[in-house]
């Protein structure tokens, strides 16, 4: 097909460390399903064989934040719940991303009310907003593709607190 055909010719290939890290990061985004209300049903549908989020390398829904790169906040976030969402987000290892799925999460939606946070960007850095009430699974997949493009544009070494291994130059004598 592609890579293996090349590799059988030379047995190796050259690339930049940034490129290979970006490529592997963006094709294995592990989501933390933060399903709070009805959007969560559509998020589950995105994982089923019909829509199949596995096509984009994100089928590994971990129910612990410590193994996740992406938090999909799917549902109405109340002020009481906001502390829980933030606590879970804080437990995710860097680098991490957030998708705000649906109208409630992005802006409070139809809950223009004293108890609902009018958009989770008041306490979380959001990368992609998904429109819809609830959004269809295709819409969530589109958001994931957008996020992958964003991850692809990010330089791996922009995350300063993550140590990359020191590379030694092999000298051929």
């Amino acid at each position, binding site marked *: 097909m592609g890579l293996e055909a090349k590799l059988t010719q030379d047995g190796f290939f050259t690339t930049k460390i940034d490129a290979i890290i970006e490529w592997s990061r963006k094709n294995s985004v592990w989501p933390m399903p933060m399903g709070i209300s009805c959007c969560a049903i559509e998020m589950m549908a995105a994982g089923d064989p019909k829509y199949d989020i596995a096509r984009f390398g994100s089928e590994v829904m971990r129910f612990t934040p410590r193994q996740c790169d992406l938090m999909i906040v799917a549902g109405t976030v109340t*002020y*009481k719940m*906001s*502390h829980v*969402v*933030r*606590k879970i987000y804080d437990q995710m290892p860097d680098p991490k991303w957030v998708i705000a799925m649906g109208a409630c999460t992005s802006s409070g939606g139809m809950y*223009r*009310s*004293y*108890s609902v*946070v009018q958009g989770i960007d*008041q*306490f*979380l*850095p959001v990368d992609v907003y998904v429109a819809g009430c609830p959004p269809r699974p295709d819409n969530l997949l589109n958001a994931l593709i957008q996020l992958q493009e964003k991850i692809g544009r990010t330089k791996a070494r922009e995350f300063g607190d993550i140590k990359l291994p020191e590379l030694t130059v092999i000298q051929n004598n």
Partner: protein
Amino acid sequence: MATLKENISFKLKEKFPEINFEISEFREEVTILFNKKNIVEVCHFLKEDEELQYKLCEDITAIDWAKRGDRYSVVYHIFSLKNNTRLALKVNVDESDCSVDSVSSIWRTANWHERETYDMYGITFNNHPDLRRMYMPEEFEYYPLKKDFPLLGIPGSLPLPKK
């Protein structure tokens, strides 16, 4: 055959001749209005009477009339499994003495219904075993279903996590 309203009216007046009951009917739903100081004994009678047996307390809530003399009404919806009939009990509560006696000793489920009413309207229930807030955080200072509470809340009254 006597209607529900006639039957209830007869039984209550027989048992409590000194209490003034205002009994009204709207679309086959009977509502009884009386003084709040009698709430516990009336509820006890309605539950324990052999013929009535209002053993299920479906809901307790309140109404904020905003500009009326007695500002609030506390409403009890009770159901008789034996007769398959519903009753609504209403007592008026004024803002100056914003409390009613708790009926949680009669119906256990009233415990949480009364907590919810306290949380939303600020009406306290005397002798309640555990009168804490139900939905809003403990440290919240307002009562959101009061008519003078703004729809979008009071900015800064509910803390958000730091960004």
